[in-house]
Each structure stands twice: as C-alpha cells, then as structure tokens.
C-alpha cells in the first residue's frame, strides 16, 4: 500500500538540519501504524512528507505503486484532496464554519452535489457521536468534540490513507479513549489504513504495528496485533 524508500529530509537553515536520514518502511492496506519517538526524532517530518505537506530532499514514497513524491504542487493538492485524510494535532478546523460545513468542505471541493455532501457529512458526524452538534460553530464545541469533527472531516473523502499527527495530545483521558477507539474502529470495520504519529505510550496500544524512530532513522519496528475497541 505505502512504500517508503530511503526518505531523507534536510532543512536548509543557517546550519542545515538533517531531520530524516534515510527512512524505509512499508504499510499494508488496512494496517494501523504508529510512529513513535522522542521529540526531534523526525516523526512529524516523516508524516508531513507522507501526507504530501512537504517535499523530501531525496527518496521515494509510493502509494499503490505510484511514486507520489514526484508530483507537482498542483497534483499533490489534488492527491491530498482525493486520496488522503489528515488529522492535525490541534484540531485545525476552520472557525468560520460549523461542524457540518467543516466536514463537507472537502466534498464540496471535489464537486459533489450539495444534497450528497450534506448527507455524507451528517452521517460521519453521527458516527463520531456529534449528530446533535452539526450546526455548532467550532468555538461552541469542546476540544474532544472538535477533534472528532476533524476525524470526520479526514474521512469524508474516503481516503486511501488517514494520517494522524498526535491526535490526542491535548485531550483528557476520556477524550483520548474516544478518539483512539474511533480510529481503531475505522481500521477494524472499514479496513482504513492509518498512519499515526504519537509520543504517548498508551496510544501505540491501539496500533497494529509501531515504528520507532530516533535521530531521523528507524530504530526498530514492533508488531502489536489488533485490538478490539471497547
């Protein structure tokens, strides 16, 4: 599904910083992979490159056999819209839109008919337990609710891969549980491929496999096995 080959990233600042020093790994379809490591290890950089938010210095990223790292900026944008989903660390919702609008925006960009995108977005918000909060503006939602809206938005385009960047870093235990269970359920029920970056040990328990990264290289990989959500 995803094949990462010798991926390198150097930030050209005053003193060049080599964030990734040649990372290679694979992710299978329907697999939930957690990328774990200490701060500055390069895990967020790796996720940004995989999600086409940034450009690698060298190396290849293949999704379903196609090298996506060579796409033009315009093609990358289109690819993100059609094929990828992304859950940001701090919800990253658009404050002028309500929950429903935030979720259906990608479908609107894809040219879906209004009736259809409203129906799809409503269904997703109901799935994440926010059926009663469709028309609430972002600031009227709690942190946990906002993150669930963000998850719903990341799924609305039926992405091939869902990327999640420390999706529970600002949540209390209860909300962490809700969000992580939701991701796990997506993987189990919809065979959704998920790549998640986290530094919280308990979150990795929801993944099928953990990729440990340190100083820009993969230190080790750990197979955990699927866990049924509670």
């Amino acid at each position: 599904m995803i094949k990462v080959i010798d991926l390198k990233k150097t930030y050209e600042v005053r003193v060049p910083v080599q964030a990734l020093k040649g990372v290679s790994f694979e992710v299978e379809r329907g697999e939930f992979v957690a990328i774990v490591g200490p701060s500055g290890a390069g895990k967020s950089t790796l996720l940004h490159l995989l999600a086409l938010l940034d450009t690698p210095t060298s190396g290849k990223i293949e999704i379903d056999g196609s090298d996506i790292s060579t796409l033009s900026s315009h093609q990358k944008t289109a690819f993100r819209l059609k094929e990828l989903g992304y859950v940001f660390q701090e919800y990253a919702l658009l404050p002028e839109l309500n929950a429903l609008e935030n979720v259906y925006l990608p479908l609107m960009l894809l040219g879906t008919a209004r009736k259809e995108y409203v129906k799809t977005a409503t269904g997703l918000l109901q799935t994440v337990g926010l059926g009663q909060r469709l028309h609430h503006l972002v600031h009227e939602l709690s942190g946990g609710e906002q993150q669930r809206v963000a998850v719903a938005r990341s799924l609305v385009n039926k992405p091939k891969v869902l990327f999640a960047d420390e999706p529970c870093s600002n949540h209390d235990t209860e909300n962490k549980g809700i969000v992580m269970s939701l991701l796990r359920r997506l993987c189990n029920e919809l065979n959704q491929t998920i790549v998640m970056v986290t530094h919280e040990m308990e979150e990795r328990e929801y993944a099928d496999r953990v990729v440990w990264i340190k100083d820009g290289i993969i230190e080790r990989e750990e197979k955990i096995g699927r866990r049924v959500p509670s």
Partner: protein
Amino acid sequence: MKRLSEKTQPMFKNLRASLFLVYKAISRGNKGTLALTIMVITLAFVNITFISSILSGAVDLAYRQAVDNYVSNIVIEPGQDEDYIKKVASLKTRINMIPGVISCSSHYSLGSTITYDVDKDGDDVREISWTVKSIDPEEETTVTNIHNFMVAGRYLDKSDRDQVIMGREVSGGYGAGLEIQSLKGAEVGDEITIHYSNGITRDYEIKGIFVTQLPLADMAVFVTEKEMESVLGLRDRASEILVRTGQRGQEELYIQRLRQIGIVDEEISPWIRYIGLISGITQSFEIIKRIVAFIGLVVAGVTIFIVIFINTVNRRRQIGIQKAIGMDEKIIIASYVFQALLYAVVGIGVGLGVTYFVLVPHFISHPLPFPMGMVSLLITRNELTASIVGLLLVSLVGGLVPSWRVARENIIKAIWG
C-alpha cells in the same frame, strides 16, 4: 461539448467553493471591519465622483455659457483677404433650411474707441479701445440669450439707432471682476461717444447692461444692425454669422452641412475655438480631477490591501489547513479577491446611492456659486464608469496581492510557523 464541460466543471466547483468561503467569512466575520471597509470605499467613490462631477458641472456651465451667450455653436467668418461675408440675407435663409439648425444671426464688428465723460464737463473722461458689434435684436434672441440677462435698463429694439447695450465688464459695474480697462461705473442712461475706426464718431445712450457671468460675453458692446450699417455704409454684409444648432457636440457634422450648401470660401469654426481662456481653466480642472481620482483610488486600494493583508496574516494557519485538506491555491486566492470585490461593489453601490439620492438632489436645490454662475453636479457616464472600473481594479489588486503572497506559502510554515 465534452471538452468544454471538462473545463467548466472544475471552474464551477472552484467558484462554488470560493464563494462559499467568502459568504462564510463575511456572514460570520467581524461586522465592524466589514462596515468600516465598505465605508472607506464609499467615501473614496463619493470623493472621486463628487469632485469630478462638480468640476464637470463647472466646465459644462462655462461651455453652455459660451454657446448660449457668446458664440453659439458655430461661427462663420469671412474667407482670407475678405473683410465681410457677402449676400448675408440669402445665406442665412439657406443656413436656416439645414435640418437641425435652430437659427442664425449676423454681426458686424468694428474697432473703436469709447469715451465716457462722467460729469459731461471734460474733467473725468474715461476712454477704452473696444470692438463694437452689431446685432439684429430680434434675430439675436433666437441664437444667444443675452436678452435674458439684462440687469439694468432694457434690451435693444430693432429700430434703436442711438442706443447701445453693454456687458458689465465694459460698464465696470455690477460686480465686474476682470482686471481690464472699463468705463469704471457707466450706468444705464449715461451717454458715451464711440469713435469708430473708419473715422465716424457717434454719441449713444446706454440702454441696458447685461451680466451673463461669462466674462467673454460680458465684454461685449452692441449697437443695432441698422445703426452699424449706417456707420459702415454697407448692407447685406456681416463680419460673422453665428449658427445655433440643436445639440452641443455635433458641430463638425453641421460644419459639413454648411459646406454642402455652398459655404466654401468662408472660415467655419466650432464654438470651442473661441474660448481660449475657458479652455485653460477646463484643462486645469481636468488635471485636478485626475489627481483627486488617483489619490482616491490609491486610498481605496491601500485600504482594501490592508484589510485583506491583515485578514490573510491572521488566517495564515487556516490557509495552511485549507491547503492541507486539498484546497487549491486558486480557490483561496479567489475567495479573498471576491471578498475585496464584494467590499468594492457594496461600497460603490452605497456610494451611488449617496451620490444620486443625497448629493445630486442637494446640489440641484443648493447649487454652488462659481464666478461663471451657479454650478450643480454633472455626472457623466464615462467618468462614472471610469470611477467604478478604477475602484474595482484597485480592489482586485488590493485583494490579489496579499492573498497570493500568503496562499503560496509553504503549508508547514503556514500552519506551524
């Protein structure tokens, strides 16, 4: 059809997304900023329109005055090496038959020295060198409006022989403003002596004084045609023929028609050739109008630029997120450009309302006093269109530049700084 549809579909969906973002940004954005921005655009529009139309009103008044009270629409003068136009009566009949010509009048003009002995005792004699013109008083009323501007005494009668009428700039009273030589206070009923350049001298009583407020027109002295023909010993001649046509601005067409009826040797000129002084003023007004319009447009453009710039800087993270979820840069830029254009359109709309429902009625009932008369607003379609297009263009640039700058930023940098 298929290719067209392939091209228009993405355009339509991008447009739909851009307009959706604009609608949400405005309906859920800061209403105070929105009102302030629209107010600045409105003020810029009203400023450009008001200054432009008041100056246009002044120019139009001057032009109207020149046509109505000075030279009419077209002036026919003798050809080269000729002192007078000949067979004037038949020529005027032919001119009057041209479709669209309202009327025409012939004038004699003769250089002279006018003397005015204030107390008739030879102590205080005022003397000026002047050109005296003749009119057929009845005929003249169909071509110029001088008869409507008598501020003292009466207009000439056809049979008057020893009477003159003069403008205030010659009499020197009634608020004469030009720093030129004049009779410095001659009144109706006073006697003046005109020494014509052909050696004939005659005494006249001032029958009337007129004030058109156009200095060029108020510098005229008229005797009757019959009187001038007796001075010159001529008949059926003229130094000039003024031709009145229906509409200002079609003079060249009528000049062609005059040529077509056989006026080929004479000089035929439109009124604009005779208003050198006014032309200078109108050119200055044009420059002022352009400067004011330019400054107004720059102010409007900079305001929109600042509003959109602050908007995009504050929403830098959101723009990054929009790009991250797959929104094309073009949609983001278009949303800010549409936003800027919306400010401009609403500002212009309010400005048009203020102009047409407040300023125009106000200045119709309270025109501004100008040296040439009372001036109201004259809004021309061309100038109005130029103001609207100018404001829309500066708004477009004011919206495009900051949004383009931010929308092109790297996603990671935009979201996480």
